[in-house]
């Protein structure tokens, strides 16, 4: 009897799980199906879920669009460069705070935590003024700096937890084998911490890739818009290319979902490290 009750419970859980997955994915299914419709089918009443005339060519139209290509280039340059900056700055900072006690350590970690909580949104007007004075509106440098600055805190926070979980004995053993502190960090600690570094890097990349408001504010020049801002010009008061908007969105979303799925096993622990105790 207990076996049957367990079986029923599993069936109920599976059904509930599949229902939840369907609800979460349904809107993105609409996105994909709309991206596959010809323009004329966007305005049928009553609206249909499935395209009558399937148009995978919409994706080809988007990829060949020179505007789309320039948005993609801006997004890639900004996301990759700011992620590299974040990793280069966060690894030593996180390692040092995980391994050493120093005056102001608590204050430093506190500041990191607080700055993590300031989404750039609240500061965007100030940022605009500052970059305007500096003459950095419409430059890669402006967007890269802002993204790196805002993602740094989170990266330090995640990495610190990873470094703190690595036993000190590993470095001591390396020292016995004749490794200096720098060598131990490079050859022993970093390889062990690499899942943490990958997690932090993917987080920084996705945050920069999806960033909207700062780009909307600082990149007023059509040539310098990243994907998030650029694609909105497919649907304005004058043109209504929902099909192309969603085709471009699918292209932007799929790689990020794959990256995210890669770090999924670390999400539960890594995300809340240091805060959930």
């Amino acid at each position, binding site marked *: 009897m207990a076996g049957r009750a367990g079986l029923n419970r*599993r069936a109920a*859980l*599976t059904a*509930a*799980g*599949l229902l*939840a*997955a369907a609800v*979460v*994915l349904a*809107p*993105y299914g*609409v*996105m994909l199906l*709309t991206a596959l419709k010809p323009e004329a089918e*966007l*305005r*049928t*009443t009553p*609206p249909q879920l499935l395209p009558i005339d399937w148009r995978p060519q919409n994706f080809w139209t988007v990829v060949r669009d020179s505007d789309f290509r320039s948005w993609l280039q801006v997004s890639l340059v900004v996301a990759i460069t700011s992620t590299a900056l974040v990793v280069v700055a966060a690894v030593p900072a996180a390692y040092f705070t995980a*391994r*050493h006690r120093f005056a102001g*350590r*608590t204050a430093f*970690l*506190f500041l990191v*935590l*607080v700055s993590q*909580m*300031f*989404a750039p949104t*609240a*500061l965007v*007007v100030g940022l605009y003024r500052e970059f305007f004075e500096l003459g950095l509106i419409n430059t890669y440098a402006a967007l890269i700096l802002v993204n790196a600055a805002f993602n740094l805190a989170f990266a330090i926070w995640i990495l610190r937890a990873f470094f*703190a979980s690595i036993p000190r004995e590993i470095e001591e053993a390396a020292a016995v084998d004749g490794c200096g502190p720098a060598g131990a960090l490079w050859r022993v600690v970093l390889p062990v911490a690499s899942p943490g570094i990958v997690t932090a890097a993917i987080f920084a990349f*996705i945050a920069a*890739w*999806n960033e*909207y*408001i700062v780009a909307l504010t600082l990149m007023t020049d059509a040539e310098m818009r990243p*994907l*998030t*801002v650029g*694609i*909105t010009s497919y649907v304005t008061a004058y043109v209504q290319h*929902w099909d192309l*908007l969603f085709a471009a969105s699918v292209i*932007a*979303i799929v790689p990020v*979902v794959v*990256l995210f*799925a890669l770090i*999924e096993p670390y999400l*539960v*622990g890594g*995300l*809340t490290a*240091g*805060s*959930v105790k």
Partner: protein
Amino acid sequence: MRNYGRLLEQEALPVVIGNTAIWVAGVVGLTILISLALAQLLDGAFPGRRLVRWALIVPWAASLIMTAKLFAWIYDYYFGLLNRLLTVTGVLARPVDWLGDDRTVMGAMIAVGVFVSLPFTTYVLLAGLQTIPGEVYEAARVDGASGWRAYRTVTLPLLRPALLVAAVLNLIYVFNSFPIVWTLNDRNPGFAHDTMITYMYKIAFKSALRDVGLAAALGVVNVGLILLAVTGYLRMVRWREEPV
């Protein structure tokens, strides 16, 4: 300083503050309730759990502006599938102009806010659930507590730290959220459905005012509000340095 004085003279300010309160309370409250159920579900073992976890990642990974545009399309009065779904199933007698009707626009925006906040919140609560050792439940069962009672008396108290983290981080993220309100409230003139953040942005860059000084004053007020929330958060979780 004059900017702060002028800020208080803005007629739209009380409405915007009210909208912000409804937006934040609605999204955070509903998100946490639904996430509690989802986290509980994902904590159990069943075939296909992996698939559900991957599905849950999608709204988290997708850019907010793209998800917001997607919902603007789904909510569309004439061509949107939501009205079609609700009229075909008989839930609604006639279509609703979700984003144009003053009575529905805030609710429609809150629904999208909840949708995009669920993944992160569920993962935080799931992390909290996984720190609860199984023996605790066994002890509760021996004492005769099971089902809903065990959940209320054992799980919820032990989940408190994770709940606090989820609540306060969401409070900050939702307060700061821009793309959803910006996109879904796009058609409506004035500030009747704006939150503090979109109001600030409109003052600075979009409205007839074009007043960066006034917007910067509002920005400082916003930062102050977030700081208050952060301080409250650190007090609640009694943030302290962990031993090395």
